[in-house]
Every structure is written in structure tokens, then in C-alpha cells.
């Protein structure tokens, strides 16, 4: 056995999250690879939510349908999981509450009351699961104390005791449940973090020193992470009155020399459209993290989709460069966000990092990120007295970006069509020159675009293509299938579509697009840019990420 998939489910407020946090931290300490993803309703209490935790001897980074151990905390949890509960699923929990005939009864609450109250029931559950995972009991108890490090000694003692009691009960189950996963010493050295954390750390490494946002799920987690970092780094963090203000504030910050980040979701991003157009007009950098969720409008606020690609590539009126990056794993989340600041700065253009709820909320163990030794360079110049912000003549359309107060010149930017100095003009010649200048930047950026990455061998007959968070589910589905006639081409840089897509497609007899939206927005883009049609589109728009088995099944039917 190389891994176990544990699912917890119950009402919001019942403590699924604290069980999950303790369990994943303890499993990681015990040198297991861990992956966790949650799905939750848009409510603070009640309803039915679930978390899937994979504990493995090798690196795992995708959600599976299979449930090896199920811990329901409410009666509804059982029907919530539906046919994911199979005969081989071990169901553990309080029979009196859940009422499932063949479950293993572990009365967490009753056990917890032995040491003073139902509040310890979750820690009892953690203890029982840790026993099944053969995590060392005392190491686990110590980890639990760490988890409550901010609480007083009595709380720590009681939780450690609750853990031990749960552990004993778990040990008693061992003959009936065989979980035997080898640990991997290298896992303990890895980092464990969410997609939101990866984006925030990427922003730190990218020199982000100004963050403004209006809270909107699921983009807010990055705002909160950056606010926390503002305690130790020089970062201005401001919650703004609306997303229109957010985007205009970010442009003001970039104009004055900062590296600003905004973080939002589709609805908030839609409100930023005019400012994105302004970014194009005044050639002032702009970086937005957009954590997608299903639309239209408010849609499914806490769920996932890749439905905003069209919105991103068409954001803002007029013709100008926009760069869309979409990380497929945590390392890319870090790298692409770091890069986004540099791309925006060099091209004096808007750059969007498109993630989604699944990406920002899921977390797993991964190799530590490569942080460059030298700080990022700001691509700005000291101005001379005769400085003109939009000097023409460079083939890539770029003119050195000055900032006010740095040098003897003045820096004039105007949303109206302008001349080289930034002053309003309606001269046809100047209009044509400025349009050409802005278009030249699109060509220059496309040439420098990160190429797509091929996973699987080069002797493929079927080529899968995808972008963003479908990456890890597709890669694991491919390894499940074990076929060397299938390869997967993943695009971390989505727009402007990098060259090379057509070359890869040329060697394939069959093309299949895989993405988490209703129509295949990325497939449309590829077809439009390359002229090559997809044979199939594997799409999903039910608010969830693809599960590995589901993808493997569909791919094998089509490939």
C-alpha cells in the first residue's frame, strides 16, 4: 500500500478543519507526503462540507474519488459523499449520530467527555486516525500540543490526553483495518502549503510591496497572507472600498514606483476592466491574481471553475498587451507569481495570474521553492530634464519608465491618446504611432512567452492539452493509465498563446482539450490561434476539480 485517502465530512463549524489541520501536520511530521483539498458551501455554519486528505509514501497533488477511510461527523455526511463510499471504504465515527449500519463505532464525544468535554472530540478523532496511520503516539501528542501552542497549559494537556485516548481506540481497530504506508524521510524536509500561500510567497519574492483588494472568495486568502507578511516586510496593504478603486489604486502605486498586487475573483475582476484598459493606455504595469469560481454573476461562491479565461484575455476595451499566466502546481504558483511582477514591469502592461478555488485552497507537500539570492530589479529609470514617458523608436514598443520624484524630469501619463510627452493629442500620425507602439509590445511578449511543457513521452498519438489547475489531476490520471501513446501539453503561460502549440499538435493524431469550464475556452483560443481543431473536449463545470479516476476513465474512452 502506498497511500490512503481519508475523507472527513460534516457541518460547517463542526471542526472538520481543525481535524484536517492537525492530521496533515502530524502526517507530514511523520515523513509522509500529504495532499488535502476541501469543498464547502457558501455558509458559515451548518450545511455539509468535506475534506479529502491523502497520506502517501510518494508525492501526491490531485484529488481522487476513492475514499479509503471515511469519518462522517453528521448524518448528512453519508449521503453527501454518495457513491464515493464503496464496500471497501472503512467508515469510522459515532454510530449514534451518523446511524450507518456497517460503520465502526468510535464514540469520539463520549471519549472526550472522559477528560472534560465534547470540545476534545475532534482531537480524539485525530488520535484514532493517527493510530491507524501508525504515527508514533508520543510524537503525535507532542504535535497536538504544538497545534494548541497559543492556548494555556491545561488546554494543551487535555488535548494531548484526548489524542492518546483516541489513539488507544484506534490501535484496537488495527487488526480490522490494514493501513501500512511507508514513510519517506525526504517528505519531512518538504514544505506544505496552499496555492494561496504559494502565490503570496511568489509575490514576496517578486518584490511586491503594495497590496490592495476588496475581499472576495476565493481570492481573499492571498490578501490575508500578504497582510500577515506586512508585519515583517515593507508592504503597504489596504482594503479598498470596491474593486474599481482597487485597480486604480494599484495603478497609482505602480506609477509611483511600487510593485502592486491586487487579488480577487471573477466578479471583482470584471469591475477592474476599465482600469486594465487604462494600464494598457498609460503603459503602467498591473498585476492581478484572479482566483476563479463558477459564474455567471455570484455563481457558486465557494467552488471552483476555470471559467474566466475569456474574461481575462478580453479584459479592457481597446487593443493592448495582456499576459495571462496560470499555475498548475504549487511551484508554478510561486514561480509564475514572482515572474508576473517582472513581466508586468518590463512590458509596462497588465499581467493576470489565473488560479481557482481548488488551486488556492488545496495544499500538499512539495520540494521547497528556489528563492533567488538577489532582490528583484525595478525596471525604472532616473529621469533627465527632457524626459518623455512615451518616447518612440524602440522596436519592441517599450520606452524607459520613469517615476515621479526620481530624477529631474516629469512623468506624465494620460488615459487619452497622447504624444511622447504624455500630452493629449488627436494627431492621426501620433495616434498611429502610439497604436503601433502598443501592438509591438504584444509581439515582443509573445516571442518571450514561456513555452508549454510536455508530460509523457514524445511518441504520443493522442495529445491532451490543458492549462492551470488541471495539470496535476491529468498527470496522475496518465500515470494510472500507463499508456505511452498519450502525452499531455500544459500551458503555464496561456496568453498571448506561445508559439509551439501547433508544432506539438502536428505530431498528434488526436487532440483532446481538458479544462474546468462549460465550453472549452482554452480550446477555443488554441483553435483560433492555430487553426487546428480538437477532436474532443473533456470539460467540467459542476463546481469541483476533476478527480483522477474520473479523468483516467474519460481519457481512456476517448484516446
Amino acid at each position: 500500500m502506498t497511500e490512503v485517502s481519508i475523507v472527513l465530512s460534516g457541518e460547517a463549524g463542526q471542526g472538520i478543519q481543525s481535524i484536517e489541520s492537525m492530521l496533515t501536520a502530524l502526517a507530514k511530521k511523520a515523513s509522509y507526503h500529504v495532499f488535502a483539498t476541501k469543498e464547502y458551501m457558501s455558509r458559515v455554519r451548518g450545511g455539509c462540507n468535506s475534506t479529502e486528505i491523502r497520506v502517501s509514501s510518494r508525492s501526491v497533488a490531485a484529488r481522487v474519488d476513492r475514499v479509503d477511510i471515511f469519518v462522517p461527523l453528521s448524518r448528512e455526511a453519508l449521503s453527501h459523499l454518495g457513491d464515493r463510499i464503496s464496500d471497501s471504504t472503512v467508515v469510522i465515527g459515532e454510530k449514534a449520530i451518523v446511524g450507518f449500519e456497517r460503520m465502526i463505532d468510535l464514540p469520539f464525544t463520549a471519549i472526550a467527555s472522559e477528560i472534560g468535554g465534547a470540545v476534545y472530540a475532534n482531537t480524539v478523532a485525530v488520535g484514532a486516525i493517527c493510530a491507524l496511520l501508525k504515527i508514533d503516539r508520543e510524537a503525535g501528542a507532542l504535535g497536538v500540543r504544538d497545534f494548541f501552542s497559543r492556548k494555556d497549559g491545561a488546554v494543551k494537556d487535555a488535548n494531548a490526553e484526548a489524542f492518546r485516548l483516541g489513539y488507544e481506540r484506534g490501535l484496537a481497530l488495527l487488526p480490522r483495518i490494514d493501513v501500512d504506508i511507508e514513510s519517506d524521510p525526504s517528505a519531512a524536509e518538504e514544505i506544505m502549503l496552499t496555492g494561496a500561500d504559494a502565490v503570496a510567497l511568489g509575490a514576496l519574492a517578486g518584490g511586491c510591496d503594495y497590496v490592495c483588494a476588496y475581499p472576495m472568495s476565493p481570492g481573499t486568502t492571498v490578501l490575508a497572507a500578504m497582510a500577515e507578511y506586512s508585519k515583517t516586510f515593507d508592504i503597504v496593504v489596504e482594503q479598498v472600498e470596491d474593486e474599481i478603486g482597487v485597480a486604480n489604486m494599484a495603478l497609482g502605486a505602480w506609477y509611483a514606483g511600487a510593485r502592486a498586487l491586487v487579488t480577487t475573483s471573477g466578479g471583482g475582476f470584471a469591475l477592474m476592466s476599465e482600469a486594465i484598459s487604462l494600464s494598457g493606455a498609460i503603459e503602467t504595469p498591473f498585476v492581478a491574481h484572479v482566483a476563479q469560481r463558477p459564474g455567471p454573476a455570484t455563481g457558486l461562491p465557494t467552488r471552483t471553475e476555470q471559467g474566466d479565461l475569456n474574461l481575462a484575455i478580453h479584459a479592457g476595451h481597446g487593443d493592448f498587451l495582456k499576459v495571462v499566466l496560470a499555475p498548475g502546481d504549487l511551484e508554478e504558483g510561486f514561480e509564475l507569481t514572482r515572474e508576473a511582477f517582472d513581466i508586468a514591469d518590463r512590458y509596462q502592461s497588465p499581467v493576470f495570474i489565473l488560479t481557482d478555488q481548488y488551486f488556492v485552497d488545496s495544499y500538499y507537500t512539495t520540494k521547497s521553492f528556489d528563492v533567488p539570492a538577489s532582490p528583484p530589479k525595478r525596471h525604472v529609470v532616473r529621469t533627465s530634464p527632457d524626459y518623455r514617458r512615451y518616447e518612440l523608436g524602440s522596436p519592441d514598443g517599450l520606452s524607459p519608465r520613469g517615476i515621479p520624484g526620481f530624477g529631474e524630469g516629469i512623468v506624465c501619463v494620460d488615459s487619452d491618446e497622447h504624444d511622447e510627452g504624455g500630452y493629449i493629442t488627436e494627431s492621426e500620425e501620433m495616434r498611429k504611432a502610439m497604436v503601433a507602439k502598443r501592438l509591438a509590445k504584444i509581439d515582443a511578449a509573445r516571442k518571450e512567452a514561456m513555452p508549454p511543457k510536455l508530460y509523457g513521452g514524445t511518441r504520443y498519438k493522442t495529445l491532451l492539452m490543458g492549462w492551470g489547475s488541471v495539470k496535476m489531476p491529468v498527470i496522475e490520471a496518465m500515470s494510472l493509465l500507463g499508456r505511452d501513446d498519450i502525452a499531455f501539453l500544459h500551458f503555464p503561460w496561456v496568453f498571448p498563446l506561445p508559439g509551439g502549440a501547433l508544432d506539438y499538435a502536428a505530431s498528434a493524431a488526436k487532440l483532446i482539450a481538458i479544462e474546468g469550464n462549460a465550453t472549452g475556452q482554452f480550446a477555443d483560443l488554441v483553435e483560433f490561434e492555430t487553426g487546428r481543431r480538437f477532436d474532443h473536449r473533456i470539460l467540467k463545470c459542476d463546481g469541483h476539480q476533476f478527480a483522477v479516476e474520473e479523468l483516467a476513465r474519460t481519457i481512456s474512452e476517448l484516446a
Partner: protein
Amino acid sequence: MPDNVFDFAEKRDIAWCPGCGDYSIRRSLLAALRESGIEREKLVMVSGIGQAAKMPQYVNASFFNGLHGRALPAATAIKAVDPSLKVIAEGGDGDMYGEGGNHFLHAARRNPNIALFVHDNMVYGLTKGQAAPTSRMGMETPVQVFGVASEPLNPVALAIALNVGFVARAFSGDIEGTAKIMKRAILHEGFALVDIFQPCVSFNKVNSLQWFKENTYSLEPEYEASDRAKAFARALEEFPFPLGVLYESDERRPFEEALPAYRADRSPLRERKRDMAAVRAAVLMKR
């Protein structure tokens, strides 16, 4: 060389209508800038869209002429990123109180150290004559054909209600008086609003130069601007409308002064270098 560094040596083509109050306001502004002792390279004029919002085009300094209604968020950030800059936001009543109304409210709450000059001609100029948030009730326009039905916005009363630390009303017909008020607003430490009454010779046939002269009066020299409740009462006065500094207080700390990024280091953000060892440590915290 012009006698004012904020003016241009050569003559510029100015897009305002002949006789527009904007010309007078420009003269007041140039005088106020000179009198305030600002270094030209340190000034940033920020505006949105509209006739008044073209002002930065006609001042020889850096400017950020952005989107309609959105000057204040940009201006707030510019000041927050480099507090050594002098930031002035300027625009019309539609720009600042209409399209940008929400930002006005929240800029007042934040209190960035910027001066806001609003040309208040009670009409839309650039879009040709529709009602502004400050249009008087009953005014007929090509859109408000039955007359304006909404209560006019009272910017000075609103600003005092929001505890803005410098609130004044000026009149473009009094160039010297307006310049003096502008200078005080520029030197005020915090958000400062100067609402400037101004005739629109092309589109507002009601609120003419004569109308403003007849319906305004200057606050008496002994008026105490430090009492907020009294200031609010005076701000509510109409027919005649008081002119002058209605409220002035240095109680509130400017937005950027309160930012942790400037607690130990006053340098602008662009001069800071990210501590990559600390970034590495932040990554390893996730271990």
C-alpha cells in the same frame, strides 16, 4: 522662462471654452503652487476625466490623468508609495462627487495627505450640459427635461460630516482669494477639500458668474474654523452660500503616516530592496 516654474514657456492649446472659469482656477492654482514652495519635480497632479480634469495637462509637472471618477484611489497610492511627493487631485463635480463618489467618501475616511480641488459648476461640461450631482433642483437640461428632481449634493457639509481636516469653498471669480485657500489646502497635513464654485459659460445658463456673485458671501474674518459643529451649521447655509475655510483641524493622522512600512524608514518604497534571505525564511516556515 515663465515667471512660474509650474507654467509653460511656450503657449499651449487649451481645450477649455473661452470665458470658462477653469482659466481663473488655473491662475489661482499656479499662484498657490508657487507660493507653497513645492519643488516642481516633487509635484504630481492626479485627475480623472472632464473639463476640470484636464488641469494637469496645463501645469508643468508630473501627472496621472486616469479614468473618470478614479483620481482619488490613484492619488492615495501615489502619496503612500512616496510620501515625499506633493499630490494634488483635481476634477469636476461629476468626476469627484458623481462617478467617483464612493472614492470621495473613503478617501475622506483614509485621510491621505493630498489636496482635492473640485471645480463645482453644477453641470456636466464635457458631455454637454446634463445634470451634475450639485445641480440645483428644477434645472432643465437636455436629459433632465422636466428639471432636476434630486437633492443637490452638499460637498462641504458631507466632508465635514466625514471629519475631513480641511474643508473650504472658493469662487473662481476671486482669483486671489481662491489661490490663498488652495495654498492652505496644499500645506494642510491630511486630506483637504476645496470646492470651487465656477460658472460654465457654455452649458449652465442658470448659475452664471452673476448668480454666484449674488448668492455667495465671504465668511467673516473673526469666523473660527476649528469648531466642527459650527462649521457643519455654516456648511448647510444656502442663498447665500458661505465662501472661505469652513473647517480646519490637524487632529487626524494622515493615511501614509500611519503605514507600518514607514515606521522605521521614511524612504519611498522604490528605494527599498526586498530581503531575499527573509523570503527564503518565509518559505521554510512552511516546512
